[in-house]
């Protein structure tokens, strides 16, 4: 059974090459696999879809460039959907490095849907301190954001007239890759009862199922796959849908590696040698 032992002791760099190929090839030669929509993303879509035209939606894009792969396509898709339904978007971020990204997302969506600044959307920009900002919006939005990102006083922005707390907003959408989501649940939803929709990284997604069940959040968009589903729902093709083939392929590779690794270990054990020892310190 030397081949089994050799397989178990395979250089990790060969596995790395396999993964690299799994990403690069489908990007160069797309297979265009279909995207199926899951119920939680549908719920998020429907929650926003059901709002009457002219409602205000607060969208907080709380992410930095390192995880924009997952959250940027999602942000663009959600904002485009809002514009299509003629909802007025109030956008902000709780991360300093999210300022450029948030602005890019909203401009991209506005361009695609022909939305107009200060009439269809307001870009508030960044303010620091999760709790401070969230409680501040609940009490007095102008205390936190006296002016928008471009320095225009909120009172001079037509769509912001009469809007000064969650009470004048029909929904809060949090697109985040961090514990900011926990605070939106605790404060915007818990303390001020704002209806909340969450988009987050795939890693975080499973943690928020209890809050879905308790209706503390109305819908959940998880990761690039969630974003691809949202793109499918509004009928656009963005970076998320383009990446889905590679996603499928790498998942298959990882699954195959788990199965082969376990299979080889099983075989080598049956052959009587301690197959685990050859594989380095990880198998302890």
């Amino acid at each position, binding site marked *: 059974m030397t081949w089994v032992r050799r397989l178990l002791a395979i250089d990790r760099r060969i596995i790395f090459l396999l993964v690299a190929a799994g990403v690069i090839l489908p990007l160069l030669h797309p297979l265009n696999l279909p995207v199926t929509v899951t119920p939680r993303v549908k719920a998020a879509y429907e929650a926003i879809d059901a709002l009457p035209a002219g409602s205000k939606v607060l969208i907080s894009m709380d992410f930095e460039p*390192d995880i924009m792969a997952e959250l940027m396509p999602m942000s663009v898709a959600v904002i485009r959907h809002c514009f299509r339904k003629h909802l007025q978007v109030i956008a902000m971020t709780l991360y300093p490095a999210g300022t450029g990204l948030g602005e890019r997302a909203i401009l991209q969506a506005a361009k695609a849907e022909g939305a107009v600044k200060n009439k269809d959307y307001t870009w508030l920009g960044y303010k620091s301190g999760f709790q401070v900002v969230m409680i501040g919006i609940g009490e007095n939005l102008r205390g936190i954001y006296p002016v928008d990102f471009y320095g225009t006083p909120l009172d001079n922005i037509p769509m912001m*007239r*009469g809007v*000064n707390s969650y009470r*004048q907003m029909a929904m809060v959408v949090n697109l985040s890759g961090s514990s900011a989501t926990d605070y939106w649940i605790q404060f915007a939803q818990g303390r001020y009862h704002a209806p909340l929709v969450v988009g987050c990284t795939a*890693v*975080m997604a499973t943690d928020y199922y209890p809050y879905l069940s308790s209706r503390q959040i109305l819908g959940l968009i998880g990761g690039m796959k969630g974003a691809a589903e949202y793109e499918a729902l509004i009928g656009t093709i963005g970076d998320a849908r383009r990446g889905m083939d590679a996603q499928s392929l790498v998942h298959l590779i990882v699954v195959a590696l788990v199965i082969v690794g376990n299979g080889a270990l099983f075989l080598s054990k049956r052959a009587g040698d301690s197959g685990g020892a050859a594989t*380095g*310190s*990880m198998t302890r």
Partner: protein
Amino acid sequence: MLRSGFVTPALDTRWFDPARWNILIGVILFTSFLVINLLRARGRKELYVRPIAGSKALDEAIGRATEMGRSVLYVPGLSDMSEVGTFAAITILYRLAQRVAEMGCDIDVPCYDPVVMTVLDGAVREAYSKVGKPDAFRPGCVHYVSAQQMAYVAAVNGFMLRERPAANIYMGSFYAESLLLAETGAMTGAIQIAGTDKVTQLPFFVCACDYTLLGEELYAASAYLGREPVQLATIIAQDWAKALAAAAVVAALALAALGHTALMQWLGVA
């Protein structure tokens, strides 16, 4: 002109929010559980808390590092002082640093949050003084690296590969960095012990470390390591609260099935 459209929402002038009665009662109940158990602990010496496997391994790890003449790396999680995991990390380091000082090996604590750094630095100094070796403390062994997650990981990974600590101990709140750190640590052959309350990261620690404290075990370990009655009392108070919570759910379900929904509604947060 545009200003005229703005309506100031009515200012709230209530001094208590009646919708929050249940939370207040919850806080009062839990506080009393804590106080009762603290008093019990003072009266009796022995309170039972089940042993936690990973906590025993900590001593073993320090022993091995001392034998090999290499250092111990302590990663206190990537969170700030608003997170319980960080407090557990502080308490555990305080105990661990005493052992390290006694055994006479070196410890390195790279920090993510500057406030946590200040606190940990104080805790380690205190630990060295407590075992009577204040001079053995190496200033700068607790140091700030970066409050940007991946910069922190890059630096700590580099440190592990170049300095080759004999033991890597990860305690506190961890996020995406867990597997990157633990895999690199495993590559260097160090003995690795992890504990985190961020359950998403547990599978990765479980796979790449020798011992892992699961979720709440992290808090329990910080209490267990000291074996001080006061700390153990808090674990028991939490257990009481869990039992009460489970009972409340069962009771609310049973009552609702019989047509009484008052308890169910009372639990609801407004």
